[in-house]
């Protein structure tokens, strides 16, 4: 009560000081009471206190778990352990990008484009089609786990050699999908490569150079 009254006094003092006035408005959340210039201090204070108390009463049951509730969990990305907190409904794609793994691209968020392809325990999947919390305790691999700029994976080398990259947006997903394909089938035919990357859209290359690159990478990997 006392604080309320003090706030109103301040408000009265700071009538000409516009930025301060704004601040107070936000604090006491009583735009209407400000508009009414002739309201006595006492009644205004009463009003505010009543309003505050009702708000408090409403909030009380939800204080135990406010929505969105955050859950703590941990998983590994490219071999590094990641501990995080996230609401249950956050997609794995959003979670990874918010954690700085922006090599996982956000293309469609509906499982149509494959730009967010990652490996979950070695199985290729769309990060947008899983919840972040489902990664708890799992091993994730993004394109950076397959090869880095200093240490390129043969698939990445061949993508560069054959011009399998134009704008590059599909490339992280495409390389992860190619890795999953070659892990499963080290000597795919061109048709099998097409089927293997069927979930990954590319709007630049027309796929021919991507298929060339994966074919060359398969030969390269087999010769090692």
């Amino acid at each position, binding site marked *: 009560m006392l604080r309320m009254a003090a706030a109103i006094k301040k408000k009265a003092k700071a009538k000409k000081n516009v930025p301060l006035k704004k601040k107070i408005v936000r604090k006491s959340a009583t735009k209407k009471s400000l508009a009414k210039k002739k309201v006595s201090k006492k009644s205004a204070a009463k009003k505010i206190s009543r309003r505050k108390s009702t708000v408090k009463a409403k909030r009380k049951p939800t204080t135990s778990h406010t929505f969105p509730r955050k859950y703590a969990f941990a998983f590994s990305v490219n071999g590094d352990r990641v501990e995080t907190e996230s609401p249950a409904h956050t*997609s794995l794609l959003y979670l990874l990008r918010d954690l700085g793994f922006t090599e996982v691209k956000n293309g469609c968020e509906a499982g*149509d484009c494959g730009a967010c392809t990652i490996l979950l325990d070695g199985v290729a*999947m769309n990060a*947008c089609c899983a919840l972040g*919390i489902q990664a708890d305790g799992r091993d994730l691999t993004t394109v950076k786990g397959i090869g880095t700029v200093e240490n390129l994976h043969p698939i990445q080398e061949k993508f560069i050699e054959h011009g399998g990259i134009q704008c590059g947006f599909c490339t992280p997903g495409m390389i992860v999908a190619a890795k999953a394909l070659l892990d499963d089938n080290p000597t795919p035919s061109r048709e099998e490569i097409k089927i293997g990357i069927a979930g990954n859209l590319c709007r630049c290359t027309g796929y021919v150079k991507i298929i060339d690159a994966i074919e060359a990478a398969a030969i390269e990997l087999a010769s090692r």
Partner: protein
Amino acid sequence: MPDLRHDHSGKIQIVIDLMRIKTLGGISASGGTVKLGALVTVTDLLENKKLAREAPILRDMAVKFAGPIIRNRATVAGNIIDGGPAADIVPPLLALKASVKMTGPKGRRTVSLDKFLTGYRQTAIKVGEIITEIVFPSPGKNHLHGYYKLARRNAMAITVVGAAIVLKMKGKTCQDAGISLGSVAPTPIRCYEAEKLLIGNKITPDLAQNVAEACAAVATPIDDIRASGEYRKLMCEVLPRRLICQAAGISIDPTS
């Protein structure tokens, strides 16, 4: 999952992840019944050898289902519970006469798949219930089957018309038949009248034509960006006829 993402209103407050309940997974076939756990993925349908023997139609469907990375994630139960008219897993399961097993606070129950799908994106599942299993009678070694997904691309496409047939044969006579169509009604549908025409008869080109017409009669397709209703209606006749003739080894005019 995409529904969850589109829901920004906060309506969905509790999410329960079932993906790690081991007893909900697995494919088994014994005593003439095939059981698919709720968490069986489409990749499992594609690679499971037991299923390739028992119900190869599911493999035929799985090859056409979206793309490999979606297949790794998509589950049979998920495709059913979504209740979409273009759900690709549903027509083969309808043709196999599958049932859905559910469990909830009021106990377990089993509903046949065609009764489970009650309307456009609506199912018979009640609050608190989960799908535990999809079961269907094994169609036997000598059954004939066929699945056709008509779509605008080979991969990652939404079905324009899907058709599935499963025919149990004794010699050249059809003993039991399951025919279903997808994407031509608010839910995938079973063509009961067409099935009745087949049962107890030898398959001839004329019968195939009659059956196909009976299939088209129950379809109520709509126009959308993928195809017109008129075209879909026509395909509801063409596809079942083609599948029946192919399955029965009747040579047909490839243009029909």
